[in-house]
């Protein structure tokens, strides 16, 4: 049993220095933890319903049930209008599962083990968020793929479309920190969904996702203008079907930065406090 022998020199200061420096260690730990989340995602494909079936159902529902009425019978042009907007809504919703999973992990005690290891406090959260890239990419691929079958056409070109997907994923990665924060605060994973729906439905319906904002009453238009979903939808629309991009893009990037600046520290602090 020589393999299990404790090294008597293990109290040397050497072991206090992470291999390759603190930053390299944090990146390595986050990648290892992201890999864990990815394995879990692959092992439980049913957990991808919210980024596959759910957006498709919204797409079908709004195109074929409401689309005719909303656009005066021209379903195709409504689909061209709707899909970029729904993409934004689906990305915001795609982050809900992350908060739920983190909440469940903490309840089960899995995170106690991570906390008892010499890794940065943020590594488990950063790793989990990084792994969510796969889910947001899935949303984009599914919606653009299924939308194409329904008749959606990208009217700009390949590069703008890639830029739209990249921006959408980036927004998802910023927005999901709200869900992470909520996941740290509430007691059960079910409550994460409740809280996030309360937040996301006003944001997605009180925006230009489904209808043009000039059809709304004045006070609601005011809300639409300060809603972070609105510039995101405008940018993605511009990049997929044409229209102004630069203005809404800057607004979107500013929102993303703002979300990160506010919610990353809030989430980390709530995680540290959660005993």
């Amino acid at each position, binding site marked *: 049993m020589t393999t299990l022998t404790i090294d008597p020199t*293990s*109290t040397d200061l050497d072991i206090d220095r992470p291999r390759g420096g603190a930053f390299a260690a944090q990146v390595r730990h986050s990648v*290892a933890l992201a890999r864990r989340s990815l394995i879990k995602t692959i092992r439980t494909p049913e957990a991808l319903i919210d980024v596959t079936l759910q957006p498709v159902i919204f797409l079908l529902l709004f195109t074929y049930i409401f689309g005719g009425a909303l656009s005066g019978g021209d379903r195709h042009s409504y689909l061209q209008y709707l899909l970029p907007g729904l993409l934004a809504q689906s990305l915001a919703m795609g982050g809900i599962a992350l908060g739920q999973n983190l909440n469940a992990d903490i309840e089960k005690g899995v995170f106690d083990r991570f906390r008892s*290891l010499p890794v940065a406090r943020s590594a488990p959260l950063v790793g989990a968020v990084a792994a969510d890239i796969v889910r947001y990419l899935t949303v984009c691929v599914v919606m653009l793929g299924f939308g194409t079958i329904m008749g959606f056409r990208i009217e700009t070109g390949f590069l703008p479309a890639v830029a739209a997907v990249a921006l959408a994923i980036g927004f998802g990665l910023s927005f999901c920190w709200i869900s992470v924060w909520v996941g740290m605060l509430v007691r059960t994973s079910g409550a994460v969904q409740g809280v996030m729906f309360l937040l996301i439905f006003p944001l997605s319906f009180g925006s230009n996702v489904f209808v043009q904002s000039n059809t709304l009453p004045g006070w609601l238009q005011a809300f639409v203008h300060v809603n972070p979903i609105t510039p995101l939808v405008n940018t993605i629309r511009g990049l997929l079907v044409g229209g102004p991009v630069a203005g809404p893009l800057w607004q979107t990037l500013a929102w993303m930065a703002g979300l990160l600046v506010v919610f990353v520290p809030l989430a980390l602090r709530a995680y540290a406090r959660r005993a």
Partner: protein
Amino acid sequence: MTDLVVRAEGLRKRFGKTQALDGVDLAMRRGTVLGVLGPNGAGKTTAVRVLATLLRPDEGYAEVAGIDVLEHPQRVRRRIGLTGQYASVDEDLTGTQNLVLIGQLLDLTTRDARKRAAELLEWFDLSEAAGRQAKTYSGGMRRRLDLAASLVGRPEVIFLDEPTTGLDPAKREDMWGVVRTQITQGSSVLLTTQYLEEADALADEIVVINKGRVIAHDTPDGLKRRVGGLTLRVRPADPRRVPDALRVLDLVASPGNSASADTAAGARPGAVSVPVADDTALDIVVPALRQAGIEVNDLGLHLPSLDEVFHALTEDAPLEAELV
């Protein structure tokens, strides 16, 4: 270097209205097992969480492996292993993936992490299940994997929070074997338990916690002696002879005591026992039983069981005050 590998002074922690820790002092010598014993809600888990850097106390000082837990938690984390009350393995990952992840987080190279994972899986008899998701494991296998996970970094100090809760007796003894092996290899183990039998079997010293306070700290035998002296117990082969046996045992009762039918928790009925001053009682009782023609199945001198000690310590307030 100090001989104490865990040292805590005056730990206090309040959760809302509950004073989980109300001034806890702990000391564990290097290379020993310290059993922390107490009823549910006594503060055992809270104490372990403070020592394992998961929880900051409101007040107090704690040191693990000579390092201040509050000042240098990361340095402490490199030297400890923790197995929580609930098996905290990741159910979607395989046994190997669980252990490799821990190794990577402990800064082993992926190659070393794999090697260490394979070693531990073999040692814990999980090699065959190594490639299966942990959710397919039985309760005992999960516990073993959980324990293996806490040993990946060859920790100096191992914290085991109720490691055998919910295990059947055979699995429990396997776990005890693992703990003893860790000690022979130079680790120190702090374990909490509700099973007095477990503390008796494993611990070099026992700390009894109740309502957030340490009410006793001693060796298992020392604790037993503090609560009561020796007891002589006899089981007549013929249960009808119990009254006769009582009369015989009364001959050797220590002052102020008398023989009684055995009603200790978990005792099989039909035995009689009596508190005695010392082992010379045997010299009187054995011939007396013979003379009275009472055949016995069992006869012996016992220190009080830890059950008795525990009840005396946690329920008897005056005694508690006396011992502290």
